[in-house]
Structure formats: C-alpha cells, structure tokens
C-alpha cells in the first residue's frame, strides 16, 4: 500500500497528535522521513480537494482536525467539556509555568501574589501540567512543567511558539 494511504489511515484513526516516528510504527517499510513526506503530500491533496479537514502540527506530532471555518457548523454537536475555557487564574499560572519551568509552587505564588494550590491541582487534573522534578533544599518542593497536552490545548508546536517577552507590547512601556 502507498505510504500516503497508510499515513492517512493512521492519522484518521487517531484522536491525538502522533509524531512521525509513532506513525511509522504502522509498517516496517515506513521511515519517519517518509511519513513527513506523506503528510506534506496529504496536506496538498486536502487543500486541492477542499476537504473540511486538514493536517495540523501539534506539539511534536500531527493530527487531522476540521478547518476553523467549519467550527460554526459543529457547534450544535459540542459537548460541554469540549467548550470549557480556562479561567484567567489558570491562564496566568500556565503562563508562568510555561516560561519558568521547572518551577515550584512558591515561585508561582511569589509572581502572581496569590495562593495557587487549587489552580495547580486543577491544571494537573486537566493534564496541562505535571510534576517534573523536585527542587533541592528545604522540603524538596515539587517542580511543575507543561505537558504535551498543553501544547495541543493551545495549538502550539513547541514552547518556542510562545511569544518572547520582548515581542509583547508591554516592553514598550518598560523602557524609560
């Protein structure tokens, strides 16, 4: 069977992003490089045929998702959990973890000026952050980092996709 077809079958059957190396496991004849090539080919085909979906890079993998233009037509089928957005407290905490990881709860609280125990628990339950290490020193506090799912949730390829602090408009105001 053609590589494009195998890759398409695997991507279609998956509900999560898959890395090229993972997709390549489908067949012993398939290399990650061939998978990448097949994905490129499929992307062009979907574009040409005006499919309702496209292959999107997410984290270190790829996933077939519907195009944003279709979103309004799918709203009636939305489940409640699906549309749940994060609170500002959660977003601020995630922002700090994303940039400062591995980071302890105390450091986050210092930065946000508020207690974050509940928010951390919540983010952990949603699989957006995880304990990645323990710090040295007193009490050996847990250190948090973001997960693969974090990238997926925000449609990011990697943490490098996050804006650099100097790109934010805020920097204009920090200059004297």
């Amino acid at each position, binding site marked *: 069977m053609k590589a494009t077809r195998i890759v398409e079958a695997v991507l279609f*059957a998956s509900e*999560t992003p898959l890395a090229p190396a993972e997709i390549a496991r489908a067949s012993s004849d398939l290399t990650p490089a061939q998978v990448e090539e097949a994905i490129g080919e499929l992307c062009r085909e979907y574009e040409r045929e005006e499919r309702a979906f496209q292959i999107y890079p997410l984290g270190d993998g790829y996933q077939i998702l519907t195009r944003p233009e279709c979103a309004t037509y799918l709203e009636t089928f939305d489940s409640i959990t699906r549309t749940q957005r*994060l609170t*500002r407290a959660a977003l601020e905490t995630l922002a700090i973890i994303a*940039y400062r990881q591995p980071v302890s709860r105390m450091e986050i609280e210092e930065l*946000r*000026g508020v207690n974050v125990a509940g928010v951390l628990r919540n983010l952990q339950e949603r699989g957006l952050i995880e304990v990645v290490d323990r710090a040295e020193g007193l009490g050996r506090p847990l250190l948090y980092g973001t997960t693969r799912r974090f990238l997926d949730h925000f449609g990011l390829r990697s943490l490098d996709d996050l804006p650099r602090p100097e790109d*934010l*408009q805020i920097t204009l105001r920090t200059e004297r």
Partner: protein
Amino acid sequence: MRLPTPVGSRVSESDDPFVVDIERFQGPLDLLLHLIRSQDIDIFDIPIAEITAQFIAAIEGVEQRLTLERAGEFLEMAATLVRIKAQMLLPRREDMLEEEDPRSELVRRLLEYELFREVAYVLSDAEAERALHRGKGHVEPRPPPDRMELPLELAMDELLEVALSLPAPPAKRPHRAPVQPITVDEKIELWFKALKQKARVPFKSFIRRWKTRVHAVMSFLACLELAKRGVVRLRQQRPFGTLWIYRGESDEDR
C-alpha cells in the same frame, strides 16, 4: 501567533478608575496594575501616597466579600504599600544610592507580573483559535492513551471470587520482622548458649520470646536432635506438664 491586544482594552473600567469590583481581580498585583495603568501613571515613578489611598479604598470591605485567604493577600499588599510610603517619608541617608528607591522591588514585581498577565492573554487567544479545530470524536483532545483510558475488563463476581479464595487475616497482627529462614541449627546454637548458664531450662521459657509457631517447632526439633546426640536430656513429669531441658553432662543434677 498573533500579538495580544493591549492590556487596557481587556479590563472593563468604570468611569472612576478606583471604583473596582475586587472579585474581578486575580490578586493584589492585578489590582495595583489596574490602578496604575488605567490612570496612565509612570510605573517607574508611582505616586505611592495616592495609589495607596486608592488601593485601600478599593479593597474596603474585602474581608466580607472574599475568603479570608484571598482577603489576606490584598491586605498584605496594603501593608506593603504603607511601609513603602513610610520609607519614602524617612529622611534619606547620605550614603543611599539612587537605585535604592523603596519602590523598586514593588515595581520589579509589577512588571514581572504584567508580563505573565500579558502572556496569559496570548494563551487565551491561542486557546480560542485552537478550539475552532475539531478532532475526531468531537471530544476534547486527549493525551496519548494511557492505562487510565483503557476500559477495564473486570466483573464484580470475578473480584468476589478471588476475595472468597483468600486466606483469613491473622487474628493478631504482630509487628512483622523481616522474614528470615529459621533453621534447627540456629536453635541448637541457642540451646547451647542457654545451657551454658543454667543446668536446666524449661522449654516454655525458651520459646516465650518467639511468637510464632515455626520458632516453637524448630526449637522443639532442636531439643530432640540434641537429645538424640546425647547432649541434652528431656524431662516431663506429666502430660502437658513443664518440659525441662537438662544439660547432658549434668547427670548428677537429677
């Protein structure tokens, strides 16, 4: 990724900048930033007296409206502001460098917090954008499947059957020492030691410190073995009476 819209446009403001709904704010830093930014105050030259007054006005009655912990966070900031104000009123010492502005630590925290607050808005936009894409299954994208997500194939009667086949727990739950094999040889050693000090030893006294049956059995086997070798003699006056172990060479003790 798109750049965020400016902070000011996100915070809905009333006409009076310091009539604020405290519950809308993420914490004292958020509120303080709002007061500063909404009045176009230079963050590097905060009029502390004015801002402190506004801050305290804004958190008036905070204890009633927020939980004790959240209220405490705001009150702590109020105390910090008052302390900074007091420091600024103190006459400056001559050796004080210009950088040692009592406000500088607060400014550093505010700028750092503002940065992350900004990133949070960027993330919020990214989240909204990502939500326009639907994956297969139309449920929230899940992390790589792990055990938690595999349906477990296990029926109650299966669990119950296993439960029924399990042994009853020991009546007493003694403190369990690490399991060590108990040998007859070991017990023989102990008998030798005991009989070195006394000519005769009651069997009962010997096994008293061993709580388990296997120790008693091994001790008894050791006795028998020693008796067989002629090293000790065993004596019991009547059935179930005290079993005495005599040193073999002390025949005259009889």
